[in-house]
Every structure is written in C-alpha cells, then in structure tokens.
C-alpha cells in the first residue's frame, strides 16, 4: 500500500493537506491498530475509579476487553478479560469488587492479582501442567501518572513518563487545581460517531468551529446573560512533542467551576470563586494561578486521550471500530474536596455542553458524520489544514497544533515496526 502520499506538508508553498483516504481506507485502519494503538501508551481509567483493594472496572481499550483492577497487594493491574484456559470472559459485570474471578466455563479461579488459584479436577492434567503458566494475562505494561492509568500493548516503547514528555506539565496544571487530588465523578457518557476516529481529534482540538458549529450553545449562553464580547477569546495552540498537543484560550467560555464565575452560575457563587482564585494565586503565584483558573485548555495525549478543562473537566477517549465508526467514552473529573454545591454546578455545567444531550456535542457528532459521508465523493481527494501555516505565533484558532498531531500520525504510520 502507498503511504507516502497521505499528507502534503509544504511550508514553503504554504500547503498542508491530508488525503481523505486516511479516513476511509480499511488498510490504513489496520496499520493504525498495529503501529499506533498497539505501540502507544493508551489511557484506560483513573485511579479514583478503583479506590479500594479488589475494586475493578471493565474497559474496552484498543479492541481488547480489559479488567482494570486494584489487586489485594494494592497494585493496579490491567488484565485481558479472557480465560487462559479456553477463552471465556472471567468477569461479566462492568464494575465491582472481587477477591477472585471465577471463570463460568470450567470453573478456574483467579486471584485479583491474576494468579490461577483453583483448577477443578487438576489431578486429571499431566504433570507438566503448571498453574503458574495460566495466570490471567496482563497488558504488556500498566503505569500511572498522577492518577491517570495508561496501558501499553508493546513492552518495547519508552516509559509512560518519557512518553508523556511535554504533556506532563499540562496534566500537572490540571492536577494541581486541588490539593486533595482529582476524582472521577460516578457516571459516564458512552456514545459513538459514524466517522473516522481522527476527525474527533481534529474537531476537539480546534476552536474556530465554535462560533459556527456551536451557535446553539452561544445562543443559549447569550440568553443566560453571557455578554457576546465575552465569547470572543484569545489563545494559543502548542505542539508538545510526540503527537501531544494543547490549546487554550481566555476568558473561559461558560465559566470554570474551579474559580471563574460566569452568568451561567448562581450569583452567590461569585465571591466564593474569587476567594478560590486568590488562594490559588497565593499558592502558585499569579501567573500559574491564572493559567489554572482563568483559562480554558484542551490537551490531547497522543493518540486518543483528550482532557478538556473548560466549563467542567471532561476526560474523553475513543477508539476506531471501523474506518467510519468510532466509540467515544467520556467522564467528568473533579476536585476530590469540592463542596457539594460546586460539585452540583460542575456536573450541571458538564451536561450543558458535553455528552449526547449537551448543547454542543450532538452538533459536533452530526457534523463529523456528514464529513465522513462527504468522503464518498472521491473526486475531492484532500482536506485542508493550513490555517496559520505562515504565522510565527499561531493561536488556538490556527491549526499548527493539529499539524503536530498529523505529523506524528504520519511518522508512526510510515515507519516500519522493526526499525
């Protein structure tokens, strides 16, 4: 297959284009599975979802069914949910707490550390049969960064910390918002888009569609008393290396429950939020405090984790199922020590924008599906991503950071696995 003509990246001529075949070709998806999803650190869950020994959640990650467990020895492990005996799922519930997982087929029992601890009629097996050979299989690696759990299906790539590189500072900016740490609010939004997975990376990490595609959200905000001029924002777009990218802008659209009041919030919250702003400034200095509380920010950890620190913190991950179909999962992240009224406000704020019923996400879903449908018109071979290509200091409304994503995608796709 010819991979060299998927991108035109020509700064001199001011051209950056992506061939639409990148969104439609099943062979490309197969390569993406092997060279990207099986060769990257992939976000799987948050530590707070499995706080106690024995807690587990089941997650579909890169086409695998995983059980993410906090084992009795307090280590977080990611098991493939398939019995080493003949393949049955050893865990059917979506979440819970278990000391052991017992396979429903022939009754093999596994400790939550993965060890095979019970084999009915083991005497019938030959002497060569060793229980130790049949532990629950783990992903090649499973590591945490400040509570975010990532797995890796290829033991040969760099450690998680090295992999995250420039994205770490941005995760820190998020995590430092609360001394007590962050936790995932219970509940989730699980939905899908009939479009190629990369379209969601582009869509979420690009802000100039907002006034057009999200006219409905802007209209809703205006009706709730947000001044139109407050919806005009200034910001940056940044390439963090290894495909990770960030963009941010101020003032935060729709407010920020951590410390930026908006007319969408109750009036009595205003003073409270100003106090939090002051506290952050005392602790981190005015500059970092302003970045934390008075700016919205989206970060993408390559290839498929996006954290949106906007009117609420949305953790979003998604996987391709087919070239034209992806499954999306999102969660709401919040400071652990948040008071109950701010928590309620945060959840409300999350639902107003994100998710299958929000005032924004459904319109993105609709439009991305129409983009994907549009690629049937094969005569139009290229999509343009040249916005801001000539600028020294591209903004959030440019596409410099998106080009960072695409270049890494292209690099990984076109390298051979064993080089």
């Amino acid at each position, binding site marked *: 297959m010819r991979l060299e003509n998927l991108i035109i990246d020509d700064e001199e001529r001011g051209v950056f284009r992506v061939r639409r075949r990148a969104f439609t070709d099943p062979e490309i998806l197969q390569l993406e599975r092997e060279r990207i999803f099986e060769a990257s650190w992939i976000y799987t869950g948050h530590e707070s979802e499995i706080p106690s020994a024995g807690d587990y959640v089941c997650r579909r990650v890169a086409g695998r069914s995983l059980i993410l467990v906090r084992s009795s020895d307090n280590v977080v492990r990611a098991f493939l949910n398939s019995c080493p005996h003949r393949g049955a799922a050893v865990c059917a519930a979506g979440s819970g707490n278990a000391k052991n997982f017992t396979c429903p087929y022939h009754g093999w029992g596994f400790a939550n550390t993965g060890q095979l601890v019970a084999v009915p009629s083991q005497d019938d097996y030959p002497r060569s049969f060793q229980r130790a050979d049949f532990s629950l299989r783990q992903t090649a690696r499973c590591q945490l960064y400040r509570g975010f759990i990532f797995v890796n299906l290829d033991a040969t790539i760099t450690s998680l910390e090295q992999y995250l590189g420039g994205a770490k500072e941005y995760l820190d900016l998020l995590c430092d918002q609360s001394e007590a740490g962050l936790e995932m609010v219970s509940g989730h939004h*699980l939905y899908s888009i009939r479009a190629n997975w990369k379209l969601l990376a582009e869509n979420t990490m690009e802000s100039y569609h907002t006034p057009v595609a999200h006219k409905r959200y802007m*209209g809703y905000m205006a009706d709730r008393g947000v001044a139109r001029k407050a919806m005009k924002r200034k910001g940056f777009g940044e390439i963090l290396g290894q495909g990770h990218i960030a963009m941010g802008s101020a003032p935060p659209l729709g407010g920020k429950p951590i410390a930026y009041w908006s007319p969408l919030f109750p009036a009595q919250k205003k003073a409270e939020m100003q106090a939090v702003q002051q506290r952050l400034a005392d602790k981190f200095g005015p500059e970092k405090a302003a970045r934390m509380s008075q700016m919205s920010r989206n970060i993408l950890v390559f290839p498929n984790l996006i954290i949106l620190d906007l009117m609420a913190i949305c953790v979003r991950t998604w996987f391709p199922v087919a070239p034209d179909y992806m499954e999306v999962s999102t969660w709401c992240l919040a400071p652990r020590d948040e008071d109950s009224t701010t928590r309620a406000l945060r959840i409300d704020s999350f639902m107003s924008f994100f998710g*299958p019923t929000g005032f924004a996400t459904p319109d993105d879903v609709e439009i991305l599906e*129409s983009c994907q449908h549009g690629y049937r018109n094969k005569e139009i071979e290229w999509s343009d991503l040249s916005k801001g290509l000539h600028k020294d200091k591209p903004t959030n409304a440019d596409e410099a950071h998106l080009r960072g994503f695409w270049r890494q995608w292209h690099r990984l796709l076109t390298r051979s696995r064993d080089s």
Partner: protein
Amino acid sequence: MTEISAMVATRHDITRTMVEDFLYQEAALLDEWRLEEWLLLLSEDIIYEIPIIGMEQSSSDQTLFLLADDAQRLRGRVKQLMGTATWAESPRSRTRRMISNVRVRDAVRDELNVSANFAVYRIPQQSWRTEDGSNQTECFVGAYHYKLRSGETGLRIARRTVVLDVDVIRPHGKISIIL
C-alpha cells in the same frame, strides 16, 4: 385498606384513562414539534432527567446523568431546538412515540406517580442521510417515570424521568430530541 384502594379513595377523580390521554397528548405535541405548547404542560419546578442505568437512585447533583434539565434549561433547549442552529435537528427529524403499560403507581394528595414503557423512533431528515436510502431509523427504548400534579388547569408534569434500557448511546451517537 391497601395502598391501591387508598389511592382510589383520594384520587377517584383521575383515572388511568385520563392519565393515558394526557401522555398521548404529550407524545403528539413532541412528535409534531409543538414544543412551546409542550412547555405549557410542565410545572415551574419541573425536573426532566435521563439517569444512567444502574444509577437511577442517585441524584444528578453527585452523579453524571445523560441529562438533567430544570425549567430554565428546558426553555433554552426548546428555544434552540425550534431555532435554526441545532445542526443535529436541522432539518428536524421525524419522530414517533409509542407509549404503553401505563401504570398509576400511587397518588398522594394532588400528586400522582405514573410509569409507562416507551419506544421512541427517530428518523433523521438530512438530505445526505436520506439520499442513499440506507435505513438510519433510530430507536430509544425504556421507561418513563412521571410525577404528575393535578390542579385547576388539569395535569402538569413536575418530574419526567426517562430511564433508557441501554447505557451506551450507540450507534445513535446523540439524543438530540426530547425523549
């Protein structure tokens, strides 16, 4: 006296048939996109919510729901849906609501708790979706739990909880209509 007969004693004037008529009328307003008229069926303290299955007992103050609208949010939702900038509903989809198994669960003073099963079909109308004839009919299945309040002007909806039987909105991808 059983609970049921107590209910009959207090609410003898509201029959299940009356409740059914009310729900059918509501469904017709929604199917016909007469959403401003639909708003008139709601009481000012309305909660319209879609919890995530398995979490119906918790509150949207502490748990992420798919949706939890108060009157103000709902008026905003309707205004946007009736406008031209809700791309997911522009042009508006056709919908068809089937309601059955209506049960008046209890009635205390002027309030009735009513449950019903539903299937809501949605057929999008964007030209690019309909042109190739592929069947993109979506169906949402679940149960309604209403709190109805009877007053001078008839029944009003004080709570409208929609419990879907799936917790993944796939392959629908979105819930862009009032369920």
